[in-house]
């Protein structure tokens, strides 16, 4: 085995008293590609952030080339020869490839003139682009490049800074299959030159395709790892899921009906979703599983009229929607809880009452003047806020930004409950909230379906879907690849359906 270049030894890290990383240790060697896999929240990004100097470990040590390495900022990491390539790229679309590569420090004419040495950066950029197989003149604006090409430019930039370790975080999310293959070829070429790479991905097929070693994280613990050949896909999946599903979910006493509440037929939008059809019934919780980028949230946004679609039909109850916009969907009794609570779900600078009232204002106003019946509105807002159990009664004074994540989410749920929705689309309803609040959200969902509401439940947490849903739809690459009934729920099988395409690629 080649020389060890980086060693993590017992790294631990807590945020606000919650341990997110517990005694993680592994080693990286020159000319090795190490795959780091795990579910959301398993500690992958925390590990990355500690290596990049964005967070500091509470305990444990890192050794780089046999010397202790304790970065306190991105600069330290860069100087030590670590380069990071994130899902969102750090490129300036309005500048050329060569300018992007050298923006942190341009070589100057005659060494000291304040003029950029175009000759030299052009030459050097050509060399770097050759290494990553990008055939564009160095002066091409980055805005003209595809996502995959930009990814490669980022790698060229890392090489220009003499990076010896390159960390890639979900780099293929927005790439086509062909671009992904090209990226892997380049990664293999870099490996041959002795550069070490850490590759983080949800797509196990890709990880098995390109990595030499694989380490699996779960709940902040390193639960297994080894050479690729010793880590077949079913081992990886059972390591990743691992947990037993305990009594985390409140019992539900009601059964779903067979009355259709939402019928979706052949919804297609190129590059996003393809031919999606399903029926959601009154009193049913229909889960949607899938990997990041499988098109789950995109589907939800299309159904609520936030994004366009090219073909297909959406019917609520027995009416087919002729116009699909948030207003129209709401008129037909739909509600939508967005995955981006801060950005789209709430007005953080406004009070609980104002947030709760917003979607329902028209119902409390005279049609001609728009005059709001304030006391009736306030009474109903208070009632619904009590129902979702927000831990304050100062609905009219408390700003939403001062609430905890769980209570904020309850405000979002409350604002839709005020409209008494018939179909409720929940996109990651428990993301970023603590266990207690999760339980309360589950209870509200159970109450709703008991009253006949139909719930579309999108989640990245497998056990949550298994614990809550009557049926689970599985999406992969914008298509529905399977529907699982409650009696046949099995997390490993669902994960397999979710990765169907990738497995096919490997085989």
């Amino acid at each position, binding site marked *: 085995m080649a020389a060890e270049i980086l060693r993590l030894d017992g790294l631990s890290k807590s945020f606000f008293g919650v341990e997110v990383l517990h005694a993680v240790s592994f080693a990286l060697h020159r000319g090795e590609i190490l795959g780091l896999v795990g579910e959301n929240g398993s500690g992958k990004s925390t590990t990355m952030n500690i290596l990049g100097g964005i967070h500091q470990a509470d305990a444990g040590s890192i050794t780089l080339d046999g010397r202790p390495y304790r970065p306190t900022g991105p600069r330290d990491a860069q100087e030590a020869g670590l380069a990071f390539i994130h899902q969102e790229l750090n490129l300036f679309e309005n500048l050329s490839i060569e300018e992007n590569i050298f923006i942190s420090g341009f070589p100057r004419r005659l060494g000291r003139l304040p003029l950029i040495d175009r000759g030299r950066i052009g030459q050097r950029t050509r060399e770097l682009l050759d290494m990553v197989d990008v055939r564009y003149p160095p002066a091409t604006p980055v805005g003209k490049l595809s996502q995959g090409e930009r990814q490669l430019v980022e790698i060229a930039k890392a090489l220009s800074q003499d990076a010896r370790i390159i960390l890639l975080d979900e780099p293929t999310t927005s790439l086509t299959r062909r671009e992904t293959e090209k990226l892997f070829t380049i990664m293999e070429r870099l490996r041959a030159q002795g550069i070490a790479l850490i590759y983080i991905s949800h797509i196990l097929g890709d990880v098995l395709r390109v990595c030499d070693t694989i380490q699996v994280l779960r709940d902040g613990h390193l639960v297994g790892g080894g050479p690729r050949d010793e880590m077949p896909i079913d081992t990886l999946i059972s390591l990743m899921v691992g947990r037993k599903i305990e009594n985390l979910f409140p019992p539900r006493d009601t059964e779903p009906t067979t009355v259709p509440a939402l019928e979706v037929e052949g919804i297609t939008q190129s590059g996003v979703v393809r031919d999606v059809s399903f029926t959601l019934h009154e009193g049913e919780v229909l889960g949607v599983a899938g990997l990041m980028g499988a098109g789950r949230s995109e589907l939800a946004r299309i159904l*609520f009229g*936030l994004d366009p679609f090219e073909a297909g039909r959406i019917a609520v109850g027995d009416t087919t929607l002729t116009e699909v916009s*948030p*207003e129209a969907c*709401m008129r037909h009794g739909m509600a*939508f809880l*967005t995955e981006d609570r801060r*950005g*789209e*779900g*709430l*007005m*953080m*600078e*406004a*009070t609980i*009452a*104002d947030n709760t*009232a*917003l*979607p329902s*204002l*028209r119902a409390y*106003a005279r049609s001609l*003047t*728009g*005059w*709001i019946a*304030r006391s009736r509105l306030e009474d109903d807002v208070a009632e619904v806020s009590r129902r979702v159990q927000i831990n*304050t009664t*100062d609905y*009219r*004074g*408390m*700003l939403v930004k*001062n*609430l*905890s994540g769980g209570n904020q989410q309850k405000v979002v749920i409350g*604002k839709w409950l005020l409209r008494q929705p018939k179909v409720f689309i929940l996109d990651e309803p428990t993301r970023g909230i603590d266990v207690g609040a999760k339980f309360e959200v589950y209870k509200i969902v159970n109450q709703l379906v008991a009253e006949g509401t139909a719930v579309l439940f999108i989640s990245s947490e497998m056990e949550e879907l298994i614990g809550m849903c009557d049926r689970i739809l599985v999406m992969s690459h914008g298509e529905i690849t399977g529907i699982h009934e409650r009696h046949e729920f099995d997390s490993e099988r669902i994960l397999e359906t979710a990765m169907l395409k990738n497995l096919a690629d490997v085989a």
Partner: protein
Amino acid sequence: MLRTAGASGNAATRTAGGVRTRGWLERLILSEYLVFYLTTAYFLAVWPIVPEIATASSLSNMLTDMLPLLVVAIGQTFVLIVAGIDLSVTSIIAFASVVGASVMTADGGYLGGSPLAVPAGILTFLLIGGLIGWFNGFCCTRLGMPPIIVTLTGLMFLSGTAIWYTTGHSETSSIAGLPKAFVLIGQGSAYGVPNALWVALAVGISAHLLLGHTVFGRWLYAIGINRKAAEISGVPVGTAILWTFVISGVCAAIASILFTGRLETGTPVLGQRILLDIIAAVVIGGTSLAGGKGKIVWTVGGVLFLVVIDTSLKLLGMSLFVVFAVKGGVILFAAIIDAMRQRIIMRG
């Protein structure tokens, strides 16, 4: 009362942990009526130095100065609440003034001498304001152009057009000979109260009710605070923003009626100098350029503050330069107070 914008002061004192008591200075800075306290304090401070400021004639002068400015500023408040800006208001004032005058004037106006001249003239003013506002709003919402570009272009284009239009209707640089009944709107009074004040009161009260008590008003604050969240909650964002520009245009047209009536002529350079005063007044009142925050009462305070300072400095025999410098200082002061306010709120 809409809490989002209204009670940032007392709401901010409540955090998840409970109520914290604040020092009087912090309370004062956080008060949404700070500008009224400052105006009063300033007024009381200069009173002994220039007793003339409290005479009836000086007070009534201040009022006449203030009213048209207030009406435009009220329109601007709507646009700023949705995080837009309308720089075209002064050019609307000028353009409406000359076109409206050309309809009514006895010297060859389209309806000169006709009994319909005054109502038709007033309608012309309002239509011009509304249509230009609608066009601004259309460009900003349906074509996705930034408000500052749309209205800046409008400003330059309309100012030029107003002058060009005047040359086609008059030998001089303005259009005189307006009907008596029209002039009375700017100069006369009813029940001992100037007509202009009746107009401003009507505009102010309707604007206040519209913002504070109707669905439309609440939508505007929601759009200003978080446009995406508003959209997802079913707010017709584009239409609502479009209407703010129409309101701003109509308010500018009403101000133009008051100005034109006072001067008895349609003038293509009317209001040219007050553009930045309008925006300054609204911002001093506490309305945020970033949107989501603003009230008609605050705007009244901001306009009052600027006018009191203007008048007092003039009475003190100060020249133009002091007026300018003090205005600049006041704007900077208001901005710094706002920054402090944010910092105090952040601290919780």
